[in-house]
Each structure stands twice: as C-alpha cells, then as structure tokens.
C-alpha cells in the first residue's frame, strides 16, 4: 500500500512570494459550545492548547487551534495522529453535544511566504492585508478568487492557506499567477 498523497504532491513556485504545498496535515473540525469548560478541557487534552479568541489562532508544538465560527474550531496536528486526537476528544466530551470529525483529506494546505506574500493574497482576497490590519495570529475565512478559503498568519510572517482538496490545482494556479514576477504592486513593501 502506497502512502497518502496531497493533491499538489509537493508543488512549489517561487515568484513575488513562495507558494508551497504544505504537505499532509491533520485537521479536525470540532463543533460544540466553545464557552464550555468541557470543550476547553477536551481541546487542551487533545492538542495542548486553549480556545482562541474570535478569528484568532493559537499554535503549539506541531499543533494549532483555529477559531472558525462561534461553534467551530479547526484543530491541526500531525496527519497520522488524527484518529488518536479524535478519540481523545470523544472521550473527554462524552455525554456532551458535539461533533469531532476528521477533515484532513477534505482540504489542502498551502504555505505562502516571502516579502510579496501579502500582496499576492491581496490580489485574490477581499481582505485588508496591510501589515497594520492583518497581524500574526489572525485567521480569516474568506473568498480567494472564486473559491472559499481560510488563511492565518504565523509569528514568522508565513501565511497558511486552507482550501478544499478538489480545487487545490486552481488555488495553486491562482496564487502562482498572482505572484508572477513583474506584478509587484509595491504597497506592502
């Protein structure tokens, strides 16, 4: 049996920004009462992190928690640890009304880095990506060109973008096009 593969199979492109397939990533959608102590404890137990504030991300050692909506978190972990994390969540939340589901393969993750990262995304997303407005730790679910997408910014200035698996080629193509040399806008130097 061969290994699991991402739809982009490691593709990368270097232009105004570097666009790279971030590889397999474990992703768990957790829906529940985010204010409850049970959910808080379950998340802590599963990925060792707290509940992020609205539209924020918290990241730890190989894990992260993204605030997706008032009753939804996205938990990130190693691809092959998902089953174990879900089991942990289910155990911790037994008797509660919640949903924890593996969505690792439903989505793909792209890494966008370099000085042109903000402008590259700003060509495709109707979001204020100026450094003053979009700061590390923020998560934004939005539209990227013609697909829904979510991205967040880590402390080192790298954007991680999540989109549906089936449109991975489109997402990569659109980002690559936006990052073509010669297309510097020059506003987020």
């Amino acid at each position, binding site marked *: 049996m061969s290994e699991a593969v991402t739809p982009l199979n490691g593709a990368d492109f270097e232009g105004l920004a570097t666009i790279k397939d971030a590889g397999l990533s474990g992703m768990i959608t957790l829906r529940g009462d985010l204010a409850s102590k049970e959910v808080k404890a379950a998340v802590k137990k599963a990925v060792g992190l707290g509940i992020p504030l*609205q*539209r924020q991300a918290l990241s730890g050692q190989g894990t992260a928690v993204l605030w*997706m*909506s*008032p009753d939804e978190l996205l938990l990130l972990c190693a691809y092959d640890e998902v089953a174990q994390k879900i089991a942990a969540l289910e155990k911790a939340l037994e008797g509660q009304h919640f949903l924890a589901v593996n969505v690792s393969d439903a989505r793909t993750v792209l890494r966008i880095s370099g000085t042109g990262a903000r402008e590259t995304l700003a060509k495709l997303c*109707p979001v204020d990506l100026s450094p003053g407005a979009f700061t590390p730790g923020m998560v934004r*679910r939005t539209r990227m060109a013609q697909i*829904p997408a979510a991205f967040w910014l880590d402390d080192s200035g790298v954007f991680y973008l999540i989109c549906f698996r089936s449109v991975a080629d489109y997402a990569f193509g659109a980002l690559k096009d936006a990052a073509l040399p010669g297309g510097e806008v020059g506003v987020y130097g």
Partner: protein
Amino acid sequence: MLILTCPCCGVTGEETEFHQGGEAHLKRFGPGSSDDDFHTYMFAKENPKGAHFERWRHNNGCGKWFIMARDTVTLEVYGTYPAQTHEPPKNIRDAITAKRPGWTWRDFA
C-alpha cells in the same frame, strides 16, 4: 457592492463573502395551515421601498446565517443581528423609524 458586518464572527466584508437568503422573520406554515397563510409565507413578499429585513449567510466565512435590516432605496444598513431572533432589536427599529417614520413590516412595526 454591499459591505456587510457579520454579527457572528465580527468580520466586515464585501458582498462576495455572503449569500442573500430572502426575507427574514418569516413564520413557517406547515401541513394543515390555510391556503392564505401558506401563500403569505411562501410568496407574498413585503418587497418594500424602504427598510427590508433579510437573511444573509456568511458562506465564504464563518458559515452562519444572520439578519440584516437594509434600506432598498438608499441601501443604508440599519444593523445586523443573529438569525436566532424572532423580532428586530429595538435599536434597529429605532434607527429605521428615524429614517422611515411610519414603516411597517408584517406583524410588527
């Protein structure tokens, strides 16, 4: 291109992040209801020249539905609030009254 503020996730985004879902505060009529009630629920729209309560979903965003009070002539937004609301909050009604005295909407005004 409208700009909307989602009361569920706090994002102020452009219309392309959202999807409009028709009149809000509709009372559903199911089996056994009268023809008139069902017709009113399904088809007889308020469609006013003025304040309009409408449902929107932040579909390219947090995925939540919410309600927006918007003027169909000036496009002024009087406010947004979660979908789990039976009637518009008072501050929004007041904002409408200030601009559209005497406005009406189905069972409340």
